[in-house]
């Protein structure tokens, strides 16, 4: 049933967020530390595990694929609810601080990618 997939997804997300909150409290910061990342790892782990032990049915999988496919429209909705006025209202200093941080980070991507040995990168291209 489709709900099994949706339910598995919900389980992963809630467990991830809980662990993230727990990590945040342990570190003494008022934030969730990697909760969604942990949820993603958990989903990958569970879906690989079940490939050997108990197969996820294709209908169950479609409950997860649906939400994965809804990703882009959800992100567009997220864009439409951003506080764009707030971003522009902070004056030149806030704009410059944001822009400079982005430019510096963009420039560093090829540098870090370059530092690691080619063999480790392998043929990681996806199409």
């Amino acid at each position, binding site marked *: 049933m489709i709900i099994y997939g949706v339910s598995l*997804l*919900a389980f992963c*997300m809630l467990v991830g967020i809980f662990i*993230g909150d727990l990590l945040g409290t342990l*570190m003494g910061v*008022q*934030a*969730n*530390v*990697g909760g*969604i*990342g942990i949820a*993603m*790892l958990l*989903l*990958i782990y569970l*879906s690989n595990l079940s490939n050997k032990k108990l197969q996820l049915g294709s209908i169950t999988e479609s409950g*997860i*694929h*649906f*939400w*994965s496919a*809804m*990703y*882009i*429209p*959800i*992100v567009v*909705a*997220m*864009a*439409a*609810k*951003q*506080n*764009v*006025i*707030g*971003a522009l209202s*902070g004056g030149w*200093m*806030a*704009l410059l*601080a*944001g*822009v*400079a*941080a*982005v430019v*510096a*980070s963009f420039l*560093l*991507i*090829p540098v*870090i*990618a370059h530092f690691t040995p080619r063999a*480790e*990168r392998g043929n*990681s291209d*996806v199409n």
Partner: protein
Amino acid sequence: MLTEMLLAVLSKNALISAFLFMGLLMWLSYFFSEKLTRGQIHGSAVAITIGLVLAYLGGKYTGGSRGLADIAIFSGIGIMGGAMFRDFAIVATAFGAKTDELKKAGRVGAASVIIGVVLSFFVGAIVAVGFGYKDPVAISTIGAGAATYIVGPVTGTALGASSDIIALSVAAGLTKSVLVMVGTPFVAKKIGLNNPYSAMIYGGLMGTTSGVAAGLAATDPKLVPYGAMTATFYTGVGCLLAPSLLFLIVRALA
């Protein structure tokens, strides 16, 4: 009378209206992408840009802080585009991710989160100093805002910064987030953002989950899980480092 009834239906069933509206917006965006740019600019990039423009107009019209979602008939966009659904969809994208790719870039991904926080913090701090700020609390809060718009207020509150400085840090973080959304597809080729490996570095360096989520969606949706994975650790690490170690460094230098 009929218009009023229609508007009432739309705002009463806000989330459903949002599904309808986003479907129309996506269709329009892919149409523009194909006809006007011959597919040069990806449909989702067009959609995200239109979304941001609508958010600007919505904010201008209502004076609120939630963009288009502050208009009653579009309030469902606030639910659909809120953190809960966004994170649910992000987790779902991990389903197709390859474990070997994650393992291969795991260490570099983790390192890039720390490098990303430190880099954005100091770039923001230097800009603050350039604009004449001398108080280490203000400099650190603005630097933290250049990391993300969550790290800024968390740091500012922890250090006891004034509310106008915190507002500035949020604005810096929002600028970063919007720029990452719009800018990523344009620079993707130049910075080699075309494989899971560099996507993980990208997510770690940028850190803004919304920016990374939208930036990768507009570049290549297959890269989303890799970038999102590292980006979700960024805010936590930022909240950890900015008010402590990084603040102490700023205070020692100032």
